[in-house]
């Protein structure tokens, strides 16, 4: 570790955590960073393959947490991997479990009661903690920044490097602070906040930066809401997004299975309280938003920045002065089969999806169920809890009943329709889906699929009206 010089200039939380993990810094700008946790899923298979090819073993196997989530089925789970018909898909899940066992990783496989989406499971189990350097073979590793950890996604080659050395070469990113003044109004959610931020700064707005979210509007959010915000930092191009830990964080963590306990909890707490950045710390870029002005949002295009308030109209590319953005808008309208200037609330939807690492935690399901209670969905749709623990909790609260009574399908946990790779949950070409997930890229939910990103409450409202809506329309 590089010792903290006395009288050092004010530091951001990011810089403090970075410094704490810096094994060494080369003169040409790259640092070797020590990693506390590495999260992987079925897609990390090439990392194991290259590890084997090089004949390497894992330096800290238990610190590598393997979750079966992307390719898992959301039905017939009593049959285990035998319930997966497609042999290639079955193999993805089986090889994760096989590799993880063989190398001694912490495995949360298909049959594990803790099973779920890696970004839901790790926080829920207390695996994610403040001050950590967490990397994952998945871009939404940014989620874990909600705990005041530095967390970001890496590719399979880098995963292999971390598995072998517990370190990673990184160029120091720049910093950006997004301050949210004023609390969110009733009816506006963390998802609406992050969609508004992305609409404002753009998909590439935070490229090369780590975002620290700050201000009263952020402090007032629950851990689950903070995770929704940090999760989509990557959709603004950010390397990572983080929120300083506070009592909300500590209360959430206390008593979780992998969280420190007893005397260690006290030392951890002391350390965690030292993490937040200094008040005078400087950021490379500052963005300010008024939380009270956030309203329900929906995406209309094929990039998360292409979203508007649910009461607004889709933009007209002819009015866009930036050439590249104009072309992107026109192409998105064509792909989405929409007209310029169309009120977004007029768009009829075919299907709904409530799930994903952005919005399938218990609070998200409660939010959607509160809207659907006593109402019928006029659209077919899936409700896929973020983890098996979330599923059990929701069932204990009777939320499964609310969803099923409304006419939606209640499934087992996994990534499911967020990315459409489990061989069963995907959209048909041209199908339009109101989704609580995080990406509306062309083909994301299946070839030719059309995705509208929204909050759980807005997706629920959309289900009951058959067109894009927010709770304010009910």
């Amino acid at each position, binding site marked *: *570790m590089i010792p903290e010089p006395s009288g050092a200039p004010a530091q951001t939380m990011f810089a403090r955590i970075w410094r704490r993990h810096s*094994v060494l810094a080369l*003169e*040409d*700008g*790259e640092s*070797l960073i*020590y990693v506390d*946790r590495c999260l992987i899923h079925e*897609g990390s298979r090439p990392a194991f393959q290259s590890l084997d090819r*090089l004949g390497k073993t894992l330096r*800290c196997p*238990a*610190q590598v*947490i393997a979750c079966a989530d992307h390719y898992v089925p959301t039905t017939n789970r009593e049959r285990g991997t035998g319930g997966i018909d497609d042999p290639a*898909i079955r*193999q*993805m899940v089986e*090889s994760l479990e096989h590799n993880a066992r063989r190398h001694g990783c912490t495995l949360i496989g298909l049959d594990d009661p803790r099973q779920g989406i890696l970004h839901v499971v790790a926080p829920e189990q207390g695996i994610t*903690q403040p*001050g*950590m350097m967490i990397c*994952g073979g*998945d*871009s939404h*590793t940014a989620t874990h920044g909600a705990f005041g950890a530095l967390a970001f*996604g890496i*590719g399979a*080659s*880098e995963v292999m*490097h971390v598995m072998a*050395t*517990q370190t990673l*070469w990184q*160029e120091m*990113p720049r910093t950006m602070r997004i301050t949210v003044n004023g609390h969110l109004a009733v009816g506006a959610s963390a998802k609406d906040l992050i969609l508004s931020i992305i609409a404002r700064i753009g*998909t*590439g707005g935070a*490229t090369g930066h780590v975002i620290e979210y700050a201000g009263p509007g952020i402090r007032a959010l629950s851990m689950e809401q903070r995770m929704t915000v940090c999760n989509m930092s*990557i959709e603004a*191009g950010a390397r990572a997004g983080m929120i300083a830990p506070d009592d909300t964080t500590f209360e959430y963590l206390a008593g979780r299975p992998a969280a420190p306990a007893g005397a*260690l*909890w006290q*030392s*951890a707490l002391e*350390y965690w309280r030292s993490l937040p950045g200094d008040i005078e710390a400087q950021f490379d870029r500052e963005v300010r938003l008024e939380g009270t002005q956030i309203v329900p949002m929906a995406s209309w295009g094929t*990039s998360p920045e292409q979203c508007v308030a649910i009461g607004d109209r889709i933009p007209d590319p002819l009015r866009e002065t930036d050439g*590249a*953005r104009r*072309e*992107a808008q026109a*192409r998105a309208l064509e792909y989405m089969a929409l007209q310029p200037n169309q009120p977004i609330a007029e768009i009829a939807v075919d299907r709904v999806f409530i799930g994903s690492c952005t919005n399938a935690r218990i609070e998200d399901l409660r939010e959607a169920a509160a809207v659907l209670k006593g109402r019928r969905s006029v659209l077919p749709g899936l409700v896929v809890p973020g983890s098996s623990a979330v599923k059990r909790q929701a069932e204990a609260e009777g939320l499964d009943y609310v969803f099923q009574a409304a006419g939606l399908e209640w499934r087992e946990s996994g990534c499911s329709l967020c990315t459409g*790779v489990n061989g069963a949950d995907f959209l048909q*070409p041209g199908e339009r889906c109101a989704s609580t997930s995080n*990406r509306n*890229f*062309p*083909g*994301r939910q299946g*070839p030719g699929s059309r995705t509208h990103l929204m909050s759980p409450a807005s997706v629920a409202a959309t289900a009951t009206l058959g067109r894009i809506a927010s709770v304010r329309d009910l």
Partner: protein
Amino acid sequence: MERFELLDAVAVPLDESNVDTDQICPARLIRAFAQPGRHEHVFLHDRRFNEDGSPKPEFILDQPAYANAQIIVAQRNFGVGSSREAAVMAVRAAGFRAIVAESFGDIFVNNCFKNGVLPIRLVANEVDALRASLHRQTGAHVAIDLAQQTVTGPDGGSYAFAIGALRKRCLLAGLDDLSLTERYADAIESFERTYRAELPWLKL
């Protein structure tokens, strides 16, 4: 990893922003890369092929003039989205070794360097000028000199680009960073010892 020094090759102008990883390598095709084999059809698959697998020959990448293209010149936010390394593998499998754009997804950039693909960032008017010259001369070459850090278009316009010294060194030598890291084994060892002692609750 393959070395990268000089590249003088056909460049294809792709007048698009936000060419995201789901377009570059659709999620359902990622597992193709778990097996060795030829994957040249994965890159931008759904843009290039109909649902029944028949090609959409009108897509620029598949025009005969670009059959041997090794360089892509796009607009902004190339490779945004997922951390899937399969996206870069798809680019590479389709024969490309360099991508010039205004901006890239961060993780995509890191993945490029692990796979011998050079992502080059230029400012908007430079990228636009380069694409315009490629449109004027279909099938023309662009020359990339990594040592000198320059990109030269068919009209002779030459643009300097920035790259981290370590990345440049690795790419020029075809070095992977694991061998580099292993030289610092002692530093990691001693860091780890102190770190573990100071923050004892971190070990799982």
